[in-house]
């Protein structure tokens, strides 16, 4: 998984059926001192995150498995909030 911050949102009405009802966020990967590292990406939200939240997300084929009963066409899915980083 990877760590980062929600920095934006995208809207798309015309999309793959399996993305129906799912929110798509823009995420900025961060390092342990909250510095931005690398390019932002788009991820499916499954935990009701919002702008500014620190989250972690699963990438690659496993990102399709975030929901128990169905697979989704995603290569980046947010799966948890980060309350605190002890470094």
């Amino acid at each position: 998984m990877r760590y980062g911050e929600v920095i934006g949102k995208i809207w798309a009405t015309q999309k793959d059926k399996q993305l129906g009802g799912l929110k798509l966020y823009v995420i900025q990967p961060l390092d342990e001192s909250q510095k931005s590292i690398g390019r932002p990406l788009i991820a499916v939200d499954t935990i009701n995150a919002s702008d500014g939240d620190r989250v972690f997300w699963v990438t690659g084929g496993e990102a399709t498995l975030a929901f128990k009963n169905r697979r989704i066409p995603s290569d980046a899915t947010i799966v948890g909030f980060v309350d605190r980083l002890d470094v």
Partner: protein
Amino acid sequence: MELARVEGTVVSTVKADSLRGRKLLLVNLLGPDTTPTDNYLVAIDSVGAGVGEVVLIVRGSSARQTESLGKVPTDSSIIAIIDSIELKGKIVFEK
């Protein structure tokens, strides 16, 4: 996922059987504020995207997880046409 702009249509008559009947588009990957990265992909379109539109690309094995693409040899698929993008509270793109 990544954003991309559809730059053209890839016409291919001689191709793998499993790609038959699939629409192939040439896309330019974009940053979140739609600045082009000039990193191009050939992507299978499953949502009816047109040239010039900003779309959402899924890559790797996830690209086959759309309903119609289960057994198709693709590692990049267009799964949405973007209506608008908001970054840090500001709308940076609107269709």
